[in-house]
């Protein structure tokens, strides 16, 4: 049965995260995406002063124009937008908006999921 890595904190993903579903967009550097394009902060060994559980998730967006906007603000973040259709088999999802950014979500993928497989390059946004 699909599950999350055992070393994640006890309440991660948080209880109010829901089974993943619907279209989301992710910013990547390479096409096809490199392994690093779909790795979390925790997997990349990066610290964060914020919520520890968010470190294990991946930032995705419901709105492609929000993703496109960020590629203009942070050119080194990546220039490519990938579109993915997630289902409950891909893990859990929660809206994690920062201030007035309603479209930002965090995706916690199940351990065995091949993350990039659900995504294709998008020209939207």
């Amino acid at each position: 049965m699909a599950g999350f890595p055992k070393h994640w904190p006890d309440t991660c993903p948080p209880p109010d995260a829901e089974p993943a579903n619907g279209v989301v967009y992710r910013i990547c550097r390479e096409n096809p995406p490199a392994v690093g394009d779909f790795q979390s902060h925790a997997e990349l060994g990066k610290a964060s002063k914020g919520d520890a559980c968010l470190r294990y998730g991946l930032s995705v967006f419901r709105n492609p124009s929000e993703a496109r906007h960020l590629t203009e603000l942070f050119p080194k973040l990546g220039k490519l937008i990938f579109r993915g259709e997630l289902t409950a088999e891909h893990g859990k999802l929660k809206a994690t908006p920062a201030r007035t950014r309603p479209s930002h979500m965090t995706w916690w993928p199940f351990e065995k999921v091949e993350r990039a497989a659900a995504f294709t390059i998008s020209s939207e946004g």
Partner: protein
Amino acid sequence: MDWNIKGLNSDPEDFRGFKTLSVLIDVDGPRLFTAETRVCNALFMLVDENNESARFVVAPTSDAIIAQLENGTVSVRNALDQPVVWVLETDHTLEPQNAWRTTLGELPESVLPAQGRMLWPHLQPAFRLRAIGEGLSHGTVPASVIRQVVEGASTALRKAAAHVFKEPGKQGRASNSRKRLYDLPVQHFAYNSFEVAFSLPPEQQETLLQDEDDAEMQQIGTALAEAISSSNSAENDDANLQALEIELLEALEKLVPPLSGTVTEFEVGGTILGQGDKTFRLDRDTSKRVKKVLQTVRTKEEKITTLEGLVAEMDRDNLTFTLRQTSDHKDHVCSFSAEVFDEVMDAFVNENRVAISGRETLKSGNIDVSIFNEVGEDALQG
């Protein structure tokens, strides 16, 4: 990281233990945030990282700058562009390793936010027009250029709205709110060369991004973008321009530079044009082509008219009135400029007869008024 930092070595200890105050953008971790450091409160922007370290641009900031950033009057680039900035290199536990004192101008473009990008997408200008020409910079922009840019943008939107909603052929309640579509609040002026940017009221600006198909503004933007694309056709022939309706040609006329004077080029952009906030450049060659086609179309579809009549109805929102009891015995819907608003209002309220002159569309009889005068008692008696 493949870029060298031009600047003076600075003490990284100044930033050790910085305290995050507010995260403005978080994508796989905080990327733009304010923080308290030993030297000042600062805006931190993560501009590059690799497996070993991360580089931040750190700019002194204030509550006023952050407020401007959050309400869209200052772009992210401008908020960072302070007289002194630092590049701070940290490890991935955010422990400072190196620091350099520098300026934004010394940093490579490839790591910086694009010019004009606002903090959040809904803050991007809805419509903007930039006049480009030798010597247009802060303090040297002639009033005529400011007027040209502001009126050009506003009139182009009004003409495009007339095309989309087929005004001023009708008047009344349905069209009463159209003015809001072209009389937009100015978001900011910029002196690079001279730019005016318009936003929508905040709620509408949000809707524009969330519900694009339904937004009336989007329809106007799409019409304008199509007209601009027609003027920019690669074949350099006029066929695409000739296919445009007269309102769109007149909108274009307001977005192309004059054939003489300081302004040699206009840059048009904004979220209502769609296409990912793409900008379009219109030069004097385009001006010549637009003017030529417009002249041909006007000869076929319009005539110069001089009439007398009574201002029987007035739509003050859309700057139109209906002229009745006319010297040609027909009713005409007339559009007028804001400059003659008081005269039109006076004639309407006092039921004075007026003489108008302007361009009449042969098909509809609508008149674009250029001269408006009350007819004096002497004239009436004569």
